[in-house]
């Protein structure tokens, strides 16, 4: 099981969503509660729910697994 880091989460978001820029912080310092702020061109025209689903989909079952919580803020570029 992988141990998530802010850098790894950032890389996974940015490599899965074209043109995305992500800033990830570890909310508790415990390596399992994160907050990500994500800007991506493809979010234009998507509802907030769809934008968040898109980011959650990057991590699949890791959300609720090693990543206990991922708080999101998403914006279209």
């Amino acid at each position, binding site marked *: 099981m992988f141990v998530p880091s802010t850098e790894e989460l950032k890389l996974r978001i940015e490599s899965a969503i074209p043109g995305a820029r992500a800033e990830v912080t570890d909310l508790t310092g415990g390596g399992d509660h994160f907050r990500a702020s994500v800007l991506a061109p493809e979010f234009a025209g998507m509802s907030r*729910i769809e934008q968040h689903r898109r980011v*959650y989909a990057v991590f699949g079952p890791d*959300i609720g697994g090693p990543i206990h*919580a991922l708080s*999101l803020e998403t914006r279209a570029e």
Partner: protein
Amino acid sequence: MSETTENPIREAIADAINDHEVILFMKGTPERPACGFSARTVAALEATGARFAAVDILPDPRIRQELSALSNWPTIPQLFVKGELVGGCDIVVEMYESGELAETLGVAPPADAPDHAPAGNEPGAPPLQIQNNLES
């Protein structure tokens, strides 16, 4: 033996979503939230003055599993209004701060409602007795 496709938990969740105009799936209860995200979501909902039903997902891991499969949303809490997923803690708090939440819930925000979403009580110990509203 015939294979059954019945999924009573998923059906109970779907019924609960359809039967309640505003329903929150959360960890713990509104009185004793067991997670900070659930606590913040409850606090934002309560600050609008709207009435809402709440289901504690903790008593049975299958509730969360089936809920997430149904809603295509991986985390808890999840707020549904009129049968539609509105979002989790981040979206609910953002909507509270923009005034959109009261509008979505069909209530007028109280005149003394704070601009920033209230922090919510610190999560307490899990309640001794858990009411699973899905089964009532």
